[in-house]
């Protein structure tokens, strides 16, 4: 018999998983979205091109180690050197994580389910953080593996590599909370991209200008703080303070002590507060 029967409505009596599963599923779904996985091909172009650009210095560095027995740069400076690429990734991909649900008012479909607003925002932040971390830590790790394989004279820079990976995690949390907060405030995708990139360019442009202005007027101590306006130099300052690594700034030096680390924490807290306020408002609609 080959007829197709309309079997009518069937009830579901299988398992219903808890909120930990739901949140994890949302996080994975969002992370895939950052890289355009499960999306049309054009959504993959930007994230994968930028990820490929991030690999470029890695390839050159490994080639140089193999051919002329020299490292291209140090592990601790990788994020600072590549900051423009990382910032573009943040700007172009943050809106994909938060903007559609806000713009098209999809949130009620989540909130009428067991998912809470805190779990929703938490999953989004975690997804963006993991994406940023992969963007920075994968090239570092490939470079380190290359380093071990080439086996240059002297001990491998394992400590510096691990420190750089730890700092990549800190940088990822900082960037993703700020990026998502800005993108959530400007739910039109184009505006979201523009706002993140503008904030980055302002911070990058302002830091050396303020430094030069203060330095030339004899305020050397105050000038040191100017670098911390840029998130990449801010995290570099934390790294230098923790591990004594090179300070990757054009001139001068970072202020010492725990203050750079406290600024990182304060910025993360502020960005999370903005996200919480934005989503509390969206949830009330």
């Amino acid at each position: 018999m080959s007829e197709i029967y309309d079997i009518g409505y069937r009830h579901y009596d299988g398992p219903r998983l808890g909120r930990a599963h739901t949140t994890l599923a949302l996080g994975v779904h969002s992370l895939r979205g950052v890289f355009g996985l499960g999306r049309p091909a054009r959504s993959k172009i930007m994230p994968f091109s930028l990820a490929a650009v991030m690999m470029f210095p890695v390839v050159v560095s490994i080639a140089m180690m193999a051919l002329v027995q020299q490292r291209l740069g140090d592990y601790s400076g990788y994020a600072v050197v590549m900051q423009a690429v990382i910032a573009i990734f943040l700007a172009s991909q943050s809106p994909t994580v938060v903007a559609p649900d806000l713009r098209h008012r999809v949130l009620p479909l989540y909130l009428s389910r067991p998912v809470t607003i805190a779990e929703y925002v938490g999953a989004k932040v975690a997804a963006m953080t993991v994406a940023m971390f992969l963007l920075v830590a994968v090239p570092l790790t490939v470079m380190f593996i290359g380093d071990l394989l080439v086996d240059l004279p002297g001990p491998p820079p394992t400590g510096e590599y691990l420190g750089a990976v730890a700092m990549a995690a800190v940088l990822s949390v900082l960037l993703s909370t700020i990026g998502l907060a800005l993108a959530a405030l400007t739910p039109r995708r184009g505006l979201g991209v523009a706002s993140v990139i503008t904030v980055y360019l302002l911070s990058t442009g302002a830091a050396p200008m303020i430094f030069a202005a203060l330095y030339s007027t004899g305020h050397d101590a105050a000038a040191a703080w100017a670098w911390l306006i840029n998130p990449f130099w801010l995290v570099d300052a934390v790294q230098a303070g923790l591990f004594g690594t090179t300070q990757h700034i054009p001139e001068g030096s970072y202020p010492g002590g725990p203050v750079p680390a406290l600024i990182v924490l304060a910025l993360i807290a502020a960005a999370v507060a903005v996200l919480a306020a934005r989503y509390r408002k969206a949830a009330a609609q």
Partner: protein
Amino acid sequence: MHILAIEGLTKRFPTVTALDRLTVTAGPGVTGLVGANGAGKSTLIKILLGLLPVSEGRATVLGLDAFTQGAEIRRLVGYMPEHECLPPDVSATELVVHLARMSGLPRTAARERAADVLRHVGLAEERYRPIGGYSTGMKQRVKLAQALVHDPKLIFLDEPTNGLDPRGRDEMLTLIRRIGTEFGISVLVTSHLLGELERVCDHVIVIDAGRLLRSSALTEFTQATESITVEVEEGADALAGRLAELGQTVSPLGRTLLVEVRGPETYDAVRDAAADLDLCLIRLEQGRQRIEDVFREEAARV
């Protein structure tokens, strides 16, 4: 057992009291919640989902307290919002599978359930295309499918016929009736049109400015509201006069006439009157009386 039990519920927003000491219950089956725009229907649904704090009173949904057991309630109910809520660049299948997982279904079960409910709401091949290209009717079906995908015990449908053409409206209403009967899922459905809900509900609750106006089984309603809307290009006054002569009860409503239905002879009378006066009949519609008019009628009778 009561599916919903609402007692002395008051919700005050800074400038308006959306619900005013509302006390009402609803049993299994299809319950209509009718009220004009701003009557408090959507506010009530959000409270029942445990998403909106209230000023006073209490409410239980499926025996669970809406203020303390919201998470449990949201596990057991489905919700179709009144406004547009669909991302345009994903397909219906992707969205409904994802939302099934957000209700706690494992991946494979989510896929199976999504395919099932999309079929039940009548979305065929188009379910693989991005939602942005769908008609309003198709979008409403996707919204309904996501509310059903986790097999809830009760669904809240907020103005599901909004924006639909007469045919889409009929199909949606038929679907709602099937959900309440064949699927065995209780339904609370809102509308600002009493007439359309009469066809599908077992019970109707009417609210106005957050207050209960009426709550009764359907049969008690029908007589009061069975009427047809007649619209002619011009000559409405002449038609009203002629229908009155023919013994019909007619009241003008804007550019249209509302004619109380006595039986089949009412339709004959409209046809004959229009033909006699040589009028151009552009609309003849059943049971689409606006709720405001029921209020007006009731107020006039009191």
